[in-house]
């Protein structure tokens, strides 16, 4: 069944070409993109089931592993693929119902670019090669540049130029990291790197780890590298912001988990990660408290909650990784749902500014419920999935038991409380207080509301299905800390993959 592995990349790329060719036929374009993303979701679910019996490996073009590019789907990749394709499908359906006139955006470009973005995300998730991860990043980033500056309004150009320059800088840092890795080890295959990096000079290994963490840290928006995010995300169209917030930073987090577990099991940078996690949580949430616009507020909570995932990675234990993976899944769905609801509020009230909104609980009670549930979930009110994820992280920190870990326990509890405060403040201003001026109260299309509701239901489902899901993430974390399942399925004999190579033919 390994032929399924490349499909999450190939299908969207093919669909993007088709959608671009059909640029004059918006109806057909929509059909193409929805069909493609639905297929990707089906494939991802199949991979999720298949990956339970060990990682699935494809040597691309039948070139043997360390020379050719490998695609690997293990439990972690399969889980990320499934969540990301479910989210991208929901956001696509949401954006289709939005109508074309509101955003002044050339929709003919929107569909192909969106599909390319999903292809890039999938490529980053399933790649078993450091350079191919870079290529995946570039695919998704290039698509994100276009989506962020869609329409080319003054506001989007302003936000877009900062975003683009920061993202390019992080890509160049990543590329420098790749060059240094290649110079030190002579390979970029993750499985081979995991054995070779253990043999090189610890100082050089530290440099490589720093460079990679720096590059991924910018993409994941970790504290000192996070200031680009709250300024650039809110200016994009609502569905674009939602998918960026849900997925793009998580690709960075995924890359951090993968490199920390597979390439640097010694955990040289764990202390740095924990300190940075602490700062990310608190600085992010303090920024959110000061905001008066729902979209900007949500962008700051996004930064803040990246800190929780970095905490899980930095603990360096199996329990911590399991909790971090669960938290990533929870956060992708909840954060995307919140941004979609913010889009609904904007549609209904004509603004997302908390000073102008008001009284929505009375005039639009369903909207109020749709905001309240994911907001409470994000703040971590029991028994919702946010609470379970945070509980797992706290348990893992207490198990580590160092003074720094206890500081982080205090920090994450404080962050949760401040998240609750920020969101309740937003709730009071937008939903309970009377509006300063009457709102336009435009009708919200059912087609926009349904995908948002679907995502909220999924995030509530994560609570109901927390048992099996948590077991899955625990097994994923066990595979990650053991490392051998990944390495031995890519390189069965420890040197070569299953594909062909001149060396294998000549010598064996």
């Amino acid at each position: 069944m390994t032929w399924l592995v490349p499909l999450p990349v190939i299908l969207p790329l093919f669909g993007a070409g088709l959608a671009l060719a059909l640029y004059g036929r918006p109806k057909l374009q929509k059909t193409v993109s929805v069909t493609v993303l639905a297929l990707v979701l089906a494939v991802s679910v199949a991979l999720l089931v298949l990956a339970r019996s060990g990682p699935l490996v494809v040597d691309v073009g039948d070139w043997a592993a360390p020379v050719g590019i490998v695609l690997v789907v293990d439990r972690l990749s399969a889980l990320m693929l499934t969540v990301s394709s479910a989210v991208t499908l929901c956001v696509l359906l949401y954006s289709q119902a939005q109508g074309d006139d509101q955003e002044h955006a050339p929709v003919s470009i929107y569909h192909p670019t969106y599909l390319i973005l999903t292809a890039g995300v999938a490529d980053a998730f399933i790649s078993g090669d450091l350079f191919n991860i870079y290529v995946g990043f570039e695919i998704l980033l290039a698509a994100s540049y276009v989506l962020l500056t869609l329409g080319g309004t003054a506001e989007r150009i302003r936000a877009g130029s900062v975003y683009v320059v920061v993202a390019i800088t992080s890509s160049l840092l990543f590329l420098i990291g790749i060059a240094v890795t290649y110079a030190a080890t002579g390979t970029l295959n993750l499985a081979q790197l995991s054995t070779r990096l253990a043999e090189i000079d610890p100082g050089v290994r530290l440099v490589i780890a720093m460079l990679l963490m720096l590059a991924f840290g910018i993409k994941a928006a970790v504290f000192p590298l996070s200031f680009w995010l709250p300024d650039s995300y809110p200016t994009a169209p609502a569905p674009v912001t939602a998918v960026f917030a849900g997925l793009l930073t998580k690709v960075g987090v995924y890359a951090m988990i993968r490199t920390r577990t597979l390439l640097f099991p010694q955990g040289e940078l764990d202390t740095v990660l924990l300190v940075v996690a602490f700062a990310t949580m608190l600085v992010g949430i303090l920024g959110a408290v000061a905001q008066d616009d729902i979209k900007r507020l949500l962008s700051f909570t996004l930064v803040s909650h990246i800190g929780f995932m970095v905490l899980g990675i930095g603990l360096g234990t199996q329990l911590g990784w399991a909790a971090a993976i669960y938290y990533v899944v929870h956060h992708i769905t909840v954060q995307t749902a919140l941004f979609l609801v913010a889009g609904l509020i904007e549609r209904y009230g004509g603004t997302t500014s908390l000073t102008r909104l008001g009284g929505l609980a009375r005039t639009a009670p369903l909207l109020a419920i749709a905001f309240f549930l994911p907001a409470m979930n994000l703040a971590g009110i029991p028994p919702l999935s946010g609470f379970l994820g945070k509980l797992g992280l706290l348990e893992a920190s207490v198990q580590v038991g160092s003074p720094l870990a206890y500081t982080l326990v205090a920090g994450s509890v404080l962050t949760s409380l401040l998240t609750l405060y920020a969101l309740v403040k937003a709730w009071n201003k937008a939903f309970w207080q009377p509006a300063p001026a009457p709102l336009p109260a435009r009708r919200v299309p059912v087609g926009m509301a349904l995908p948002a509701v679907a995502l909220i239901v999924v995030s509530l489902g994560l609570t109901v299905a927390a048992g099996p899901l948590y077991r899955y993430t625990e097994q994923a974390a066990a595979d990650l800390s053991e490392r051998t399942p990944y390495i031995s399925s890519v390189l069965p004999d420890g040197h070569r993959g299953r594909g062909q190579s001149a060396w294998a033919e000549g010598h064996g």
Partner: protein
Amino acid sequence: MTDTAPNLTLVVVIAVLVAAGVYLLLERSLSRIVLGIVLLGNAVNLLLLVAGGAAGSAPIVGTSDQPMSDPLAQAMVLTAIVITLGLTAFVLALSYRSWQLHRHDEVQDDVEDRRIARLAARDAPSVAGSDVDSDDGVDLDDEARETHDETDEGRPAPVHGEGPR
């Protein structure tokens, strides 16, 4: 095994390119940033080439007794060149669009920066912290848009909305 010392000329060239690239990247106008990205991108390409080891005979095609060049590094450089080309074109378009809108291509201030600057100026706590609640009635977004400090030296700042749309 083999001699792994890198070529000194290449190392010096990389260092100069990176230094100039970082300097340009820290500038405020997008056209200079583009040049910085180009220089940095080429520096990284050379770095990849150095990482591939000493030059040798042509790889893959035919066989030879001499040691071959590393084809993988060249393949990676090729990919990186294509990506940098695409991104350079995009940033150039962005810079042109910015010039169309504002008659300059400076990276503009973060709204948050302006908000903090304004609060510091008033030396007072935020009352509502709103986008439009300031004393002078200037929208924060507009203020951020009109603040630029490098281009158009000596000339008055263009009034918002003056440029061609």
